[in-house]
C-alpha cells in the first residue's frame, strides 16, 4: 500500500501507481529538472516546494508566459531538449504547448485542479494518468500542489500523449481551474 508519505517521495510514484509499462518511449527515465510556475497563483509556492524536493530549478512568470518562453525556455530547449513541468492557468499551458510542438515536444502529463465550494479541490487527469494519482491528490488536501509536483517530477512512467485534452471547466462563481503538467520530447526525439 502506498501512503501519502511514500507517494510524496517521488520515487514511489512511478513504481506504486503505474503498474503498467511506460508508454512514453524513453520517457520512463526522463525527469523534469525545471518547474514553470505562475507566481500569481496562490498554489504556486507549494508546487515550487514540491519541485525543489526533486532538485528542480524554478522559473517564475506572472500571467503572460511569452517573455519567459522566448528569452529563457526556448533557447534552453533548442540547445537541449528535455522535459519541463509546471503549474499554470490553462491559457499559459495552451501557449507553451503550441510553442513546444515546434520543438518536437508534447504535453505528456496534465492534471486540471478545479476549485470547489468550501475550499475543496477536484483533480482531473488527462491521458492515462491513473485514478490512483487523483486519489493521492485528494488525500493531500490543501497541500495538493506539492503532491502534484511529486507526480510531475516522478518521471516518464506516468506519461502519455495528452495533446488534445480539453480544458476542464470550472464551477460557476469560483476561481478558474489551474493545471499541473509536463511537456516532454516526443518519442522519436526522446
Amino acid at each position, binding site marked *: 500500500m502506498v501512503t501519502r508519505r511514500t507517494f510524496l517521495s517521488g520515487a514511489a510514484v512511478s513504481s506504486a501507481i503505474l503498474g503498467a509499462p511506460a508508454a512514453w518511449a524513453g520517457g520512463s527515465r526522463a525527469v523534469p529538472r525545471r518547474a514553470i510556475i505562475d507566481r500569481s497563483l496562490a498554489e504556486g509556492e507549494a508546487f515550487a516546494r514540491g519541485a525543489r524536493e526533486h532538485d528542480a530549478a524554478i522559473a517564475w512568470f506572472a*500571467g*503572460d*508566459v*511569452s*517573455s519567459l518562453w*522566448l528569452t529563457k525556455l526556448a533557447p534552453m530547449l533548442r540547445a537541449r531538449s528535455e522535459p519541463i513541468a509546471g503549474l499554470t*492557468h*490553462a*491559457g*499559459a499551458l*495552451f*501557449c507553451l504547448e*503550441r*510553442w513546444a*510542438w*515546434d520543438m518536437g515536444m*508534447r504535453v505528456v502529463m496534465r492534471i486540471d485542479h478545479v476549485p470547489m465550494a468550501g475550499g475543496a479541490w477536484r483533480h482531473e487527469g488527462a491521458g492515462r494518468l491513473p485514478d490512483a494519482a487523483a486519489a493521492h491528490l485528494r488525500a493531500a488536501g490543501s497541500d495538493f500542489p506539492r503532491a502534484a509536483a511529486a507526480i510531475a517530477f516522478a518521471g516518464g512512467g506516468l506519461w502519455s*500523449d495528452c*495533446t*488534445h485534452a*480539453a*480544458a476542464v*471547466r*470550472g464551477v*460557476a*462563481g469560483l*476561481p*478558474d481551474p489551474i493545471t499541473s503538467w509536463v511537456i516532454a520530447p*516526443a518519442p522519436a526525439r526522446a
Partner: protein
Amino acid sequence: MTLPPNVTPAQWKSALAAFRAAIGDAWVFTSDEDVGLYRDAYSPVWGKDEERLVAAALAPARVEEVQAIVRIANQYHIPLFPISTGKNLGYGGSAPNLSGSVIVDLKRMNRVIEVDDRRNFAIVEPGVSYFDLYAHIQERNLKVWIDCPDPGWGSVLGNALDHGVGHTWGAYRDHFASHCGLEVVLPNGELMRTGMGAMPGAKTFADFRYGFGPSVDGLFAQAGFGIVVGMGIHLMPRPDAYMHCRIHAPRRQDIIPLVDIANQLEDAGLIGMPLYESPMFVAQFQDPALRDIARAPDVWNGNAIDRYSAEKGVAPWSLGLSFYGPEAVIRASWDHARAKFAAAIPNARFEEVEMLRFPLDEAGQEAVRHKVLVGIPNMNVFAMGARTQTNPEPADGHLLFSPMIERSGEAVLTAQRIFTEGMRAMNLPDFPYSYGPFTAPFTWIPRAFAMTTGMPVSRSDPAMNKASRETMRRLISLGAEHGYGEYRTPPLFQDQVMDTYGFNNHVLRRFCETLKDAADPNGIIAPGRGGFWPRAMRKDDR
C-alpha cells in the same frame, strides 16, 4: 488517416515519396500524431465529420523546396494549404477548407531579410512572427515600430494575408494595406514578384507597392492563387512619445459626436486607433438593475440609460485616444481634441491615462498598460483569467463573427439593435452576452467599424458547438440582410460569407473562379479559401 480526395493509395504513396525526395524525409509528416497538430484548436466541428482534417504536412525551408512541392502537387493533383505560423485562432487556425489537403507549413522559412529604419520597412519570410520581428528590431536598436495583433505569436506575413489587424496608427494596423511587395510561388511552380519586385535590379520593392500595370497582390490574400514566401511591409517610425487619454460621454446619443470628432482627428493624422468601450457593459454584471435596463424593450430610446448614467456616474460610452509623436505635439493635439469633445458633448469627462517616452528599457516595456497600442507583442490575451463576470462559463475557444458597419454613431446604434433583437427573435442563445445596448465597435480596420462578437466552442461539448454554428450562420444571414458583410471568417463559413457578396449574380465569385481555373487549373492551392472553388470542386446546387 485522411487521404487527399480522388487520389488512390498508390498515387499517394508515390506523391509522398516525391515530397520526401524534394524536402527531406524529416520534414514530411504523415503520422496521426503529427498531422493532428494541424487541427483547428477552436474548431466548432471538433470530432465531427465536417471537421477539416489534413492528409499530411510538409515543412520546406527554402523557396526552391516550395516550388518543388507545388510541382509535385500538380502532378498528383494533391490540394495544398499553406500556413505561415498557423495561429489564425478564431478564424480557422491551421486547418484547411478541404479535408485531405496537405499543409505546407512555412515556419522554417523564418528569416528577417531586411529592416530599414531610414525608409521604414521590413522584408520578411512567412515564418517570422511578431515576436521575431520585434526582437530583431530591439536587438539592433532600430528606430521603427511594428504593429501587432493581440497574440504576438502569429506570422507578420500570414496575418497580413488574412486581412489581419493591429492597434496603432492608421494604415499600419491594417496589415495588408501596409504590405508592400510579395514574392509568390504560383500554382505552376514559377516564382513571381509583385510591384517593384517585378523589375530586376529595382531597389524599391518594399517602398513602392504598385510598380506598373495591374496590382495583383490582393489575389494572394484570403485566396488560393499562390504560396507567398516573402513580403515587404511598411513600418511606423518610432515616435518620441505616446499618450493615451480617455473621454467619458454621459449620454447614449453622445456616441454620434464622439465618432464624428474621432473620425476627424484620425483622418487628419492626429490620433491612432480610437478605442471605443462602454463602461456599462461590465457594470451590468455587477448591478442587476442595469442588466434589466439593457434587456428592456424600450432601452433603445436611451432614456433609462441616461438616467442611470446621471444617477450612478457610469458612462454609457468611453473613447480612448492614442497620440504618437513629439511630446509637445501630442500634448497640443490632446488639448485640441479635448476642446472639440467638450464643445460637442456637455459634461464629458477627460482622463490622461498614460504617457510614455521612447525608447523604453525592459522594465518600462513590461510596465506598459496596453502593450499592443505601442507595438509590443505579447500573449496577455491568454493570460487573462478565462472566468469573468461577462464570461462565467469559459469555453475552449471561440468563433468570431465580424460584420463591418459604417463608421458613425448612428450606425453603431442601429447595428446594436439589429443584432440584439435579431438574436432574440431567432431564439439564439445569449452567449456571451454577444450583443446589446452596450456593444462597442472595434476600430482595428481604419475607416470602418467591426461589430465583432464571439461564440464559444468546446472540445467536449458538442451541443455548445452546434448552438454556436447555428448562431454564426444566422448572424451572417441577418447581417447581410442589412448590408453588413464579414471581413474574415473561418473556413467552415467562407462559402456562406462569399455567398452574401452576391452583387450582379455573384459576379465577384464568378470572376475569382475564372481566374482560379486559369491560374490553377488543377485546383491545388488552397481550394475553397475565400469561398470560391476550382472547377472540379464546385457545387452544382447553387
